[in-house]
């Protein structure tokens, strides 16, 4: 993770200790107070290819299911606009660790609507299984803990979103397309309900 604060540290102590505060000053989600998500898929493609896709961050617009706009503003920076359950949220993202074919880590810059930090690792799976792609993400949810709870009820929790993104990445890389039924033939009452949206 991007945070330099040990994850196991008791939160109360770490957030109250001045030294710790200083240590986490540059970190997006201080004191590891946000939810932490780890999700993984195995993809039958070489790590180098998967890394190259991810490193061109605008590609992620192809695999993130929610409406998202990603604009690369420099080699290491990008601007993100995401339509979340609570409205539109924006942040600037900075790549803080970059090991070609192995790892990309990022965090949001100061002023983010949703402060977040995360990493994606690419590691060879056993035999001919391909590459294990593991994402770890930590974030301050809009609406705090209540926001997380409400989002979970609505089926939009971040863990599922990350997982769906990884599944879509896998399908795109392996099968060349992402499975969908959006726009297929459907009977009533669904057809009318979809028309109204």
């Amino acid at each position, binding site marked *: 993770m991007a945070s330099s604060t040990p994850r196991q540290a008791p939160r109360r102590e770490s957030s109250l200790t001045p030294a710790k505060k200083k240590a986490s000053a540059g970190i997006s989600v201080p004191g590891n107070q946000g939810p932490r998500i780890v999700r993984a898929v195995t993809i039958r493609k070489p790590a180098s290819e998967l890394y190259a896709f991810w490193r061109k961050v605008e590609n992620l617009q192809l695999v993130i299911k929610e409406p998202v706009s990603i604009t690369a503003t420099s080699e290491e920076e990008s601007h993100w606009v995401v339509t979340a359950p609570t409205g539109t949220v924006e942040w600037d993202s900075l790549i803080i660790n970059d090991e070609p074919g192995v790892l990309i880590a990022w965090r949001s810059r100061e002023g983010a609507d949703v402060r977040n930090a995360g990493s994606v690792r690419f590691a060879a799976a056993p035999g001919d299984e391909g590459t294990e792609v593991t994402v770890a993400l930590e974030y301050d949810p809009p609406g705090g803990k209540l926001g997380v709870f409400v989002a979970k009820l609505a089926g939009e929790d971040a863990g599922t979103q990350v997982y769906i993104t990884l599944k879509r990445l896998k*399908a795109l890389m392996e099968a*060349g397309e992402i*499975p969908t039924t959006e726009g*297929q*033939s*459907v009977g009533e*009452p669904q*057809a009318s309900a979809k028309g109204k949206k």
Partner: protein
Amino acid sequence: MKAAVWMGKKKMEVQEVADPRILNPRDCIVKVTATAICGSDVHLYNGLIPTLEKGDILGHEFMGEVVEVGPAVRKTKVGDRVVVPFTIACGACSHCTRTEWSCCDNTNPNAHIAEALMGYSPAGLFGFSHMSGGYAGGQAQYVRVPFADVGPIKIESDIPDEKVLFLSDIFPTGYMAAENCNIVPGRSVVAVWGCGPVGQFAIRSAFLLGAAKVIAIDSIPERRALAEKAGATAIPSGDDVMETLKAMTGGRGPDAAIDAVGMEAHGSTYDDVKQTLKMETDRPFALRQAMSCVRKAGTLSVPGVYAGFLDKVPFGAVMAKGVTIKTGQTHMQRYLHPLLALVEAKKIDPSCIITHRVPLSEAPEAYAMFNAKTDGCIKVVLDPSR
């Protein structure tokens, strides 16, 4: 176009819906020339499969003519006459490359829903629940078929639709059920619970694979009669099946047991009540009996569809007897070419199970009849042109 649409428990409608269109580069559109109602459609009809929604188009046994292909389709051409397997596979994931086609990783857009229930998601299916992808089915005049170069098999000869239609599901499903029995030619005795369409193909496939004897179990006389036509010895279902099987096998019991019944078995009031009260999702009467009746070190093959959680399953008997269990949705693409060859060589005529041919417009009545098993109904084929 016209399509058979599920509108709630025991309620089908034929509706006018929008024609399908290409949604992904590897899709094709098939104009359906023949389609059928499957036993698993009955589970859907009865509202027993979670995540089906009102307005969903059913049907996963269908064939027809390719009328449009997506830009990334290479092999399949407009004008091809094809049978479409009911499991949708990408052909590229590790499961597909190992011919575990029904376990494809990349064809269920709702994989996360299936994973919540089962841990991992199998392949997407036509005309099934949203948990299985929610793909519009083939009891319609047209259907969108993803991965057109991976699923559909082209029929080159002018063999009639009815002889090849069941390559879409039940013939391969019955065949895989028999193959899973590890039949030793000339020695194995196979007992088949359920003489519906899958059971009928399992019986015929067991003989094709060399079974010495096939014992068929069903409560319905005309289904038993059809099983006997294939060479099986048929017995009525009931509590005395175990004793009958022992008497017929010199006390050894059947080497393999096939449960071609699935989640809606009849014969147990206990399960009827529990399923009605939603205290169990499935009525595993046939499965329990098969587990008890199969020989020591035997094989239990389960092509019957189960949806969730089963009650009072005698797993102790399975363990103590060292029974091997083989199950799963059919790895369709393994069987399409070999089984088409068997049909073309006249080793089997799959159309022998058809009892009813009706227009698509009469699908609601046909569902009701097939569900109630009235009028001697074993298999219904729908004509989408009418």
